[in-house]
Each structure stands twice: as C-alpha cells, then as structure tokens.
C-alpha cells in the first residue's frame, strides 16, 4: 500500500501526470485559439499556424452572442433561457431528494426498504424510454380506461419551461435520493436521539442537524445535476422546443452551424460561451466537488 502511494507521488509520476494534463488540454486550447481567429483562417489552416502569424479577432464572439438576425447566434438570449431552465431543475431535485432521503433513512415505517429499492432500481431506466409518455402526459393529460384523471397542461411559449423543470426533476430524483440517503444514513443515530430527547421535531432535526451535515453531498449533487442539465440537449429539445422563447443554449448551438454545416466556425466561440457558466460554478464549488465525489460510495 505505502509503496503504491510512494510511487504515485514520485517525481516521475508527477511528470507523467503533468504530461497527460497538457496532452488532454491541447485540443481545448486549440479550440479556444480557433475561436479568436477569422472565419477563413479557421477553415483553411490549423490553429497552430497562429504562432507563425498571430492575428486575433473577436468577430466570432460578436456574431455568436449578439448577432442581430436569428441566423447568427443570439446566444445571449438563449443563455438566459438556459439559466432559467437550470436553476429550478437543480433546486427541485435537491429539495425533494433531501426530504425523501431523510424520510427513507430516519423515519421508521413499513415498506421503507422496498420503496428505497424501487427508487434505486429506477436509476436503471433510461430516460429516453420516458420521453414519449411524458410528452403525451403534458399534451393530453392522463386517461385510464376512458376516465380522465388529469387534464392536459396545454403549455405554450415560456410556459414550456415548466415542462422542462418537471422532466429534469423526475429524471434527477432517483440518483439524488439514492446519494443523499446513503449519506444521511451514515450519520450517527445518537445525534438524532439526543435531539429528539431535547424535544426536536423531525422538521427541526432535518433543518438544524441533518442539512448542515450533508452539505458537501448536497453541493456535489448540485454540481452533478447542474452540469447534466446545462449540457443536456435531448430533454431541452423535446420539452422546451426549438423556439427562441424557451429553448436552452444547447439547442441553439446544435442549429448554429447551419442547415448544411457550412458555418461551423461559429461553434468554436459558441462552445466557449456555453462553457463559461459551468466553469464558474465548478471553480467556485470545487472544494465540495472533490469531497462530495466520495459521498455514498465509501462506508465508515
């Protein structure tokens, strides 16, 4: 064990790690450099030629972000859509997930384990299977044997954000319940007992004791869910549609290269615009990320 650790922290290992890091970053760096080059240069020469003839332009960013016609990006407004979609889509599963996880971990009731196993099993179901049923759930409501149980939602325009929130929350819940449950059930039972003998209700225990203790897990879950929702194209495309009113940025990015991909130079700048916010979130929550990565996976 110690020998492995020693060899992993040796100078050669560091060098290798550094080398891999550089190798891994090179394509991204090339993309970044490309995004500052002119269209005809991007299309005719490789990004490395920049070093022999350095010439930078912000044209791509200008076009992608603020282009006036819908043919040239308008990413700025889609960026807002993405934020509007992402924030609730992260908060809802976190909130519902932590309630459910607390109940499953600390409230004794019959069938608790079975419910937990059921939720755990739901993770295996690919979300693609649920797309069409969920879509008809929104558009036609629920009907069982001719009995109308739920009306159609009839959401249009910006109302479709609700559909996306709903979908992301559904798809995000199994993992968040599973993760938070594992984390919460690790908490020492003496804590709860002590709190209860002091007269604390479940609500108080949850808020004052459990939530602060599982903060790292919540943070890491938030990052996971955030990155997933932010980068998601499929759910956004289906539930938010492709119009400027409600479509997230990923949908716009997919359209931006043009019908026949002849404007692909825009993708360079588009990619970096879309990466800024995740980068900021990641860097500001990095601490939790590393700590939370181990959440629920290691016992004791």
């Amino acid at each position, binding site marked *: 064990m110690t020998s492995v650790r020693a060899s992993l922290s040796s100078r050669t290992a560091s060098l290798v790690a550094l080398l891999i890091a550089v190798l891994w970053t090179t394509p991204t760096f090339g993309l*970044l450099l490309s995004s500052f080059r002119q269209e*005809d240069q991007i299309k005719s020469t490789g990004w490395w030629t920049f070093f022999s003839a350095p010439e930078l332009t912000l044209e791509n960013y200008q076009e992608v972000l603020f282009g006036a016609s819908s043919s040239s990006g308008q990413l700025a407004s889609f960026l807002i859509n993405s934020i509007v979609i992402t924030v609730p889509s992260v908060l809802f599963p976190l909130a519902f997930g932590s309630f459910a996880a607390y109940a499953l971990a600390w409230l004794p009731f019959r069938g608790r384990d079975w419910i937990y196993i059921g939720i755990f099993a739901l993770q295996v179901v690919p979300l693609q299977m649920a797309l069409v049923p969920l879509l008809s759930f929104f*558009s036609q409501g629920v009907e069982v044997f001719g009995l109308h149980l739920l009306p159609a939602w009839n959401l249009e325009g910006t109302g479709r954000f609700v559909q996306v929130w709903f979908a992301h929350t559904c798809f995000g819940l199994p993992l968040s319940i599973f993760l938070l449950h594992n984390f919460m059930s690790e908490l020492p039972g003496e804590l709860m007992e002590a709190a209860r003998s002091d007269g604390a209700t479940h609500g108080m225990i949850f808020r004052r004791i459990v939530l602060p203790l599982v903060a790292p897990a919540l943070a890491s879950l938030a990052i996971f869910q955030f990155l997933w929702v932010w980068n998601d194209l499929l759910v956004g495309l289906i539930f938010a549609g492709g119009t400027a009113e409600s479509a997230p940025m990923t949908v716009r990015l997919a359209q931006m290269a043009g019908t026949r991909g*002849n404007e692909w130079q825009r993708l360079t700048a588009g990619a970096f*615009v879309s990466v800024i916010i995740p*980068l900021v979130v990641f860097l500001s929550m990095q601490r939790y990320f590393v700590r939370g990565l181990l959440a629920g996976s290691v016992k004791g």
Partner: protein
Amino acid sequence: MAFASRLLVGAVGLALVATGCGSTSTAPEAEGSTSADCAAFSAYGKHDGKKVSVYSPIRDAEADLFQQNWKPFEKCTGMKITYEGTGEFEAQIQVRSDGGTPPDLAFFPQPGLLARFAKAGKLKPAPAEVKTLAEEGWSKDWLNYGTVDGAFYAAPLGASVKSFVWYSPKTFQEKGWKVPTTWDELMTLTETIAAGGLKPWCAGIESGEATGWPATDWIEDVILRELGPEEYDRWVAHELKFNDPKVVAAVDKVGAILKNDKYVNGGYGPVKSIASTAFQEGGVPITTGKCAMHRQASFYANFWPEGTKVAQDGDVFAFYLPGKDASSKPVLGAGEFVAAFTDRPEVKAFQRYLATAEHANARMKLGTYVSARKGVDLANAQNPIDKLSMEMLGDPATVFRFDGSDLMPAAVGSGSFWKGMTDWINGKDTRTVLDYIDASWPPS
C-alpha cells in the same frame, strides 16, 4: 491549474465585454406593408390571433429568409407563424407526433419519411385547393413524391439540384477545355486533364455521422443515367437488387473516376484521402488550380471561400453532369414537402399560400432559393447557379428523380449505403460492398 483556469475565465469574460461594446444590432425589419399590399392576401381570409406552427429541417440563415418572407402574410391575415428548425428532424418529428404534440405543418426533406407518416394516418390529406395549386405548379415526377397510396398529401416547397459538376470557367478557357455534354466527352476530358499532369477530380465525403453521403449521390446520379429513370425507381424500391450486375457496372463506372489514383484526389492526395476530406472542403482545390472538377449539389455555392465569384464568367461555376448522350437529361435532386398534421382553417390557408408561385417568387427575391414550381420568375433568382438550377428543373425535357438514399429505408439510405460507400473508397471492392448493402435491406 487553479490560476490557469481563473486566467481563462478572465480572458473569456473580457472577450464578452469587448464584444458587447462593438455590437450594433440592426435587425432587418420587414418593410412595413400598407393596406394596399394586403390585397394580394385577401383570398386567405382573416385569422386574427390564430397560430400556425411549422417544423422544419431548415435552420439558420435560410430559415431567417423564410420567416422574413412570411411577415407580410402574417400581417395581412393576422395569424402568427411559429417556426422551428432542427437538425434532428427525422427523429424529433416522430417523438412529437407520438407524444401528441405534432406541429401544424412540417417540411419533410424525405418522401420516404412522409410516406411513413401518411400510412400511419398521422397526416391530413392536402386540401383540394392545395392539390389544384400543386398540380398546376409541379411536374408529375414531383407530385408523385407527395402522393401516398393514391392520396395527395404534400406540395413541394424548395428544391436543390444534385447533378452538377463544379469547375473553374477561367481555367477551362485558358486550357481550351470544353464543357462536356455526354458521358464519353466527360471521360475524354478527364483523360486529357490527367495527361496534362493535373488530377482532374476532387472529392470529399467526410460528414461526421453522415460520412459517405456525397459518394451515394455520385452512385445515384450514374445509376439514373446508366439504367434510366424506370430502373432507378425499381432500384430505390429494392425491386432491382443492390448487387445486381447492372448496378455493379454502374458503380464501377463511378469507380473508374473516384477509385483511380490518376484522376483523384486533386489537391488532397490519393483515393483514400476522399474519405477523410470534409465534404465542405471537397471542391475548394478548384480555386487554387489543383483540381479541375468537383461533383456536388447546387448548394455547394455557399461553401466556396470568401471572395470567390460564382458565375458563368466568374471563378467557379457548375455544368450539368452529362447523361449518356446529349438528348437525355435526367436530374437528381432533393427538396422539401409541406405536409399538415392538423386541418384548422388557418393552417389550410397558410398551406395554400406556400404552394403558390407568389410565395416562391417573394422568397427568391430575399436570397438564395430554388423552386421547381412552374410560373416562378427566373429574374428573381439571386445568383447564377440558382438560375441555372431552375432552368434545368423547368425544362420540359428534364426527368427529375429524388435523391435515392432519402427514399430508401433509413437502415440503408442513412446507414449501410453511406457506410458501404466509405468502405468502398477505402479500398473494398465493388461486389463485396454491394453485397453488404443489399444484405442490410430490412425484410418487409
């Protein structure tokens, strides 16, 4: 790491600020139409506050032109048209339809897909007025693609011509080469150019997941020429097998050009470089004089490097990929078909407008657009290649056939055919490849 990333964030943030300062938004507003302009739209009635949704594979600049073109119509009829363009049309339209949220109108780029929806009973047959307009506007070849089981569903919209060979008129004039009018002349010209030490053809078939499609167009074009339109239809319907000796011979005819190291790949390298060259870049060596000819559709006009003049007397232009002899004129092409999922009055009215020559003419005035409709005014064409395309499509001698891979089942048309052709370019022999494609045809 942390420092570098922070630097990166800073740099990008700075870029945002900088671009923000330079932005001047001047949206091209549709010219304000007076009530007099509305006379032209009075036949479509008033549909105040009604909405029509359109779903289409056309996006970006071309989509803008469509929307801009519809503004007067929207203003005069009072309806609102919501347009949605997507790169995943084939998959998404299925999901939308199954999920109970189909669009009102969809622009189908593939007649095969259209037929599948029509057979499933999802589409409404075209209203009688649309049918009349379509019958007066398009040739029988076109109408057939919008007809399923005897019922007419969809009028064509835009079109593109695939049977083009791009060349440099300047170089041709300098060297004294003549635009060929028969296949034999084409091969002689190829031989002459090759003898002069220049690789006559260049090609590129790399296109991400769709790699191989430009090669399938080549094959379709030659099968259409070699076997004729009837046999072509049989081949598309799999009544004529993929590995039939006649098909093998036609594919070998393409191979005589595309798999000959003497003839390809001008500006890029040996035969195999075709598979790794992006189709967008396939013809670019023509502008640098490293290649003489490139077979690609009319839309390739948008791919030339900035500053290239596309005209009869310009830097590049296209000639018709010749048929067996000068008299036969088969044209391979593609286009969109407007089908309706609903039949509300406003949807019908808009569907009717889309089928008129007025719509096509107005659209042409705004920017590059090709329509196969009779009665379009060629003077409205925005560039010479659109004009040439429409002349060809409008020629009564022209036999039009739709891109075959768009008509075949998806497993073949956007699967094994593409893949097979890529393998073929990479060195597999014709017979093996065609056997493979034929075996992949789904049993029906």
